[in-house]
């Protein structure tokens, strides 16, 4: 059981690979260096798409969690999608922070600053690491899904805080370049194309990895269920043997007392 048909998943995998190679060509050579930041700005073509995918992944986790909590739409599919998407979100948030740090060192002169955007993003990472830890706490599937769905909705509150942190507080981090309050992008030409292509490539990558991670979740749930059934069957078989032995013992004794 997968989210996508196997042929579509394979095609998506190849399309993603091509898109990532094209992104690397444009990001490292095709796009011109920034007039102020020079080549260090080439990290933007990874940093911004990674941040976008983190938002998307946590958004998908929140929506899937809400769909699981709503009794009419409750399905284990949504619980698995929520878990798979959160795992991807954590990876892309981690990449966002590391890439931002690598970009910040030559441009700001520091690896890290106690800046609103950076701190709220780090908080986002820890919130979803906590969510993933919660998913691994042993419980019945329904109890686990319920507590994780609630945690995912609470954690998602930090996503708009991260996004608007550069507007709400004075930050070292630059203001929004594309999703400005006026929705007027401050980037043009080949640089804009490369940035949008990066977002497209990372979105394809996210959908492909989500499908793969979902497939893994289905297989592991099936295996857990089989192991549980097998363990119960062995226990019942063992109990059955001892039940059969006891009455036989009693059967030998009872007639001796009752028959006369």
């Amino acid at each position, binding site marked *: 059981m997968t989210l996508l048909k196997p042929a579509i998943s394979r095609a998506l995998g190849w399309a993603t690979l091509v898109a990532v190679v094209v992104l690397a060509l444009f990001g490292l050579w095709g796009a011109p*260096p920034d007039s102020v930041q020079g080549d260090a700005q080439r990290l933007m073509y990874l940093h911004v798409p990674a941040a976008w995918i983190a938002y998307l992944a946590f958004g998908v986790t929140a929506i899937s969690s809400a769909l699981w909590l709503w009794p009419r739409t409750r399905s284990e599919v949504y619980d698995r999608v929520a878990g798979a998407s959160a795992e991807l979100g954590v990876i892309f948030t981690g*990449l966002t922070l590391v890439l931002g740090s690598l970009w910040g060192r030559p441009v700001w002169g520091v690896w890290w600053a106690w800046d609103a955007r950076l701190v709220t993003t780090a908080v986002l990472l820890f919130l979803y690491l906590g969510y993933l830890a919660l998913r691994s706490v042993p419980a019945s599937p329904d109890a686990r899904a319920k507590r994780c769905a609630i945690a995912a909705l609470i954690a998602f509150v930090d996503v708009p805080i991260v996004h608007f942190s550069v507007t709400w507080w004075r930050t070292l981090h630059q203001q929004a370049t594309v999703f400005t309050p006026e929705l007027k992008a401050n980037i043009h030409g080949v640089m804009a194309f490369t940035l949008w292509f990066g977002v497209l490539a990372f979105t394809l990558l996210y959908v492909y990895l989500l499908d793969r991670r979902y*497939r893994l979740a289905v297989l592991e749930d099936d295996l857990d269920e089989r192991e549980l059934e097998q363990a119960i069957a062995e226990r019942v078989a063992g109990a059955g043997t001892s039940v059969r032995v006891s009455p036989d013992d009693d059967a030998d004794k009872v007639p001796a007392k009752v028959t006369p």
Partner: protein
Amino acid sequence: MTNAEYVIAGWVLTGAVLLAYWLRIQQRIRRAERLERDT
């Protein structure tokens, strides 16, 4: 290229992390499929 060490480190690190994650998932899928066939 100016600041090449930071730019290359960022691109290589991103590629390595995503490739490692994809390989790990593929490995776990194959293992789970094999176990499913065996049981």
